[in-house]
C-alpha cells in the first residue's frame, strides 16, 4: 500500500519469510501439490463438476468456520456451533413445514435471528458468567442438542415436507454457479471487509492480541467478546438454513460433530489458538483444503477404512509444516 513509508524493511527476500507473511501461499502450494498427485491417479479430479462438488461440500463449513475464526481470534472457542446449527435447522424446518408459503428471505432472517439468540446465550455465560469459553460451549453443546430433541420430540422434517423455495436457495444457479457457493463467497467477502476495514473488526484482533492493552486503549473487551459469540451464532444460523436447504431435511442429529471440523478448518487456515492471528482467506483456503482432501481420498480409492487416518495425518502434517516455517522465519 504505502511502501515508501517502511524504510527499514528487510531488503532480502526469503522464501521462508514469504511463506510466513503470506501464509495462504503455503496452503495454496499444498493444495496444488495434492491436486497434481491426485490428478495423476484419478483424472476425474480435474473436472469442473468435481470442483463444483467440492465447493458445494465446503460452503457451509467455510461459513461456520469463519464464525469460529472470529471467536478463536479472541482466544476463545465455540464448540456449540454444531448444536446451534441442529437447533436452528430444526426450528426453521418446523416453520417451513407449517407455513410452506413463507417467503424465503423471511426464513433466512428467522434463521439468522434464532442463531444470534442462541449465540447470545453463549455470550452471556462467557462475558457475565466468566465461564471459560471452552467449558461454556462444551456445556451448551449438549444443552442445545438436548433442546433439538425436546423441540422436535424426536421427529424429523423430511424432504417432501419442505417447499421448493428452500431447496432452490442453495441449488438454484446464477451463471451456472450454484447459489450455495455464491452465498459462501458473499459471506466470506463480508466477513473479510468486516475484519479488515471496520474498527470493530480491528478491535477483535486487538482484544485477542492483548486484552489488557485493549482495555487501556479504550476498547471494551467484554463487548467484543459478547459480539464474537453473537456473530458465531449468526453465521451458524445462516449455516443452518443452508443446511436445511442443501440436505432437504432437518434431523435430530443434524451437524453432529461438525464443531471439530470448523476448528480444524480454522487451524489449518492459520488461525492461532492463542488469539490475534488469522485471516479470512486463510480459513476459506483451509476449508477448501479439507474438502479437497476428503474428495481426493475417495477418488484415488484409498480404502475407506484408512481415509480417516489419512485425513488426520494430513492435518498433522499441515500444522507441523506451518510451525517449521514459522520457526525458520523467527530465526532469520
Amino acid at each position: 500500500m504505502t511502501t515508501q513509508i517502511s524504510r527499514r524493511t528487510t531488503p532480502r527476500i526469503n522464501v521462508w519469510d514469504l511463506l510466513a507473511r503470506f501464509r495462504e501461499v503455503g496452503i495454496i502450494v499444498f493444495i496444488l501439490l495434492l491436486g497434481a498427485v491426485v490428478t495423476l491417479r484419478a483424472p476425474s479430479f480435474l473436472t469442473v463438476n468435481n470442483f463444483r462438488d467440492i465447493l458445494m461440500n465446503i460452503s457451509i463449513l467455510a461459513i461456520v468456520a469463519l464464525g469460529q475464526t472470529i471467536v478463536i481470534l479472541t482466544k476463545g472457542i465455540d464448540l456449540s456451533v454444531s448444536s446451534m446449527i441442529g437447533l436452528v435447522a430444526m426450528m426453521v424446518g418446523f416453520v417451513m413445514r407449517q407455513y410452506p408459503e413463507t417467503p424465503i428471505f423471511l426464513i433466512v432472517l428467522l434463521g439468522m435471528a434464532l442463531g444470534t439468540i442462541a449465540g447470545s446465550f453463549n455470550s452471556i455465560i462467557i462475558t457475565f458468567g466468566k465461564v471459560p469459553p471452552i467449558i461454556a460451549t462444551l456445556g451448551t453443546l449438549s444443552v442445545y442438542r438436548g433442546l433439538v430433541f425436546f423441540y422436535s420430540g424426536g421427529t424429523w422434517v423430511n424432504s417432501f415436507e419442505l417447499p421448493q423455495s428452500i431447496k432452490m436457495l442453495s441449488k438454484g444457479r446464477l451463471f451456472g454457479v450454484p447459489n450455495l457457493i455464491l452465498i459462501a463467497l458473499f459471506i466470506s467477502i463480508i466477513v473479510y471487509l468486516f475484519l479488515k476495514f471496520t474498527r470493530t473488526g480491528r478491535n477483535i484482533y486487538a482484544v485477542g492480541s492483548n486484552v489488557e492493552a485493549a482495555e487501556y486503549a479504550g476498547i471494551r473487551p467484554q463487548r467484543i467478546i459478547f459480539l464474537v459469540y453473537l456473530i458465531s451464532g449468526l453465521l451458524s444460523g445462516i449455516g443452518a438454513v443452508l443446511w436445511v436447504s442443501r440436505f432437504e431435511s432437518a434431523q435430530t442429529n443434524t451437524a453432529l460433530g461438525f464443531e471439530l471440523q470448523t476448528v480444524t478448518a480454522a487451524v489449518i487456515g492459520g488461525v492461532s489458538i492463542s488469539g490475534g492471528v488469522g485471516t479470512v482467506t486463510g480459513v476459506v483456503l483451509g476449508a477448501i483444503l479439507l474438502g479437497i482432501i476428503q474428495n481426493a481420498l475417495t477418488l484415488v480409492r484409498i480404502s475407506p477404512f484408512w481415509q480417516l487416518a489419512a485425513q488426520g495425518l494430513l492435518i498433522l502434517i499441515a500444522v507441523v509444516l506451518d510451525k517449521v516455517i514459522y520457526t525458520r522465519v523467527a530465526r532469520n
Partner: protein
Amino acid sequence: MKNRYLIISLVTLIIFSFALSACAPADPEPPVVEDVEEVEEVADPAECENYVLVPKNLGNPYFDTGNVGAQEAAGELGITVLYQGSATADASEQITLLNSLIAQQVCGLAISANDEDALVPTGQAAMEAGIAVVTWDSAIAPAGRDLHINQAELEGIGRVQIEMASRLAGPDGGEIAILSATSTAPNQNAWIEVMEQVLTEPEYANLELVEIVYGDDDDTKSYNEAQALFTKYPDLKVIIAPTTVGIAASARAVTDADLIGQVFVTGLGTPNQMREYVKNGSAPEFALWNPADLAYLSVYAMHALATGEIQASAGETFTAGRLGEYTVEDDPDLGLNVLLGAPFVYDADNIDDFDW
C-alpha cells in the same frame, strides 16, 4: 466475604439438584423403599407389566414408527411399553442405559443393538436377572438374548435389493455400487454378503459391483460418498443403499447432480423420506418391512417370553395379535429367531398409501 458467595453457590446447587429430580416423569405411585431387598428375586411373571422398547438411538423416525406399533401391541396386551434409547447410536451409551433398565427389574427388553458383540455381557446380565430379552431390527449375538425378531430373512432382503437393481439397470445391466451405513453395522454387513452371493448367479452376471462405500448413517457423509461414486464411475447405473439415511442422501445427490434417469437409487428406505424421490424418478422403487409391525411382533414375543407362554426353544408357537401365529425357528447363524415376513417393495403406485 468470599464465604458468603460460596454459601450462595451451595444453596443454588442444592436447589438445582432438586430441580433435577423434579425432571423425573410424574410417577403416580413411587414403589416403596422396603422393596429393595426383594430386588434380587426374579420378577413374578404374573404381575409383569413393564416392558421397554430400546431403539438404536432416539430421534430416528424409523424407530419412532416402530414405537407406534409397540404401543398398539401394549394396548392390546394391557401392559406398558416404555420407549427408551440412548442419545446417539453408540454401544457404550446403550449399555449404560440398559444397565439402568435392568436395575429397574423391568419384565422384558426389546433391543435394537448398536453392537452385536459388545452387548452380549449386558444381555446376559439381563437374562440372569430374569428379564426377557428379545432383539429387533439389529441383533445381539445369540448368547446375549433369548430371541431375535427378524424383520426379513437375510436372503430375502439381499435378494430383493439385487432384483430391484437389476430391474432399474435394464436388460443390459451395468455398474452398480453399494452405499452402506457404518462399516461396523452387523445387519448391513450381513446383507452385503448376501448381495455379493446373489450377484454370482448367472441371472445377474451383467451387473458389476464396482465399490462398497460407507456413509456412516450420516446424511452429509452419505451424500458426499454418493457424489464421489458417480464422479469416479461415469457409467454407474445403480446405487444400492441398504440404509434409510444413505438411500435418501443418495437420491438427493442424484437429483442435485441432474442425473435422474441415468443413475438410479434403490435399497431400504422409509416412505416419508423417499416420497419425493420416488416421484421425481431418482429412486423409483425401494424395499422395507414395516417397522411398526416389527416392533408390534417384538412386543408380543417379549410378552410371551416373560409370561412363560414360550420358553425360547425352537418350534414353539405364539400368536401375535393381528399378525397371526408365529413359530420360533433355529438358525445356525442367527440362533433362535422369529421371522416377520418378506420385505415390501414400495414404488410410485403404492407409496401414497403409507404415512410414516
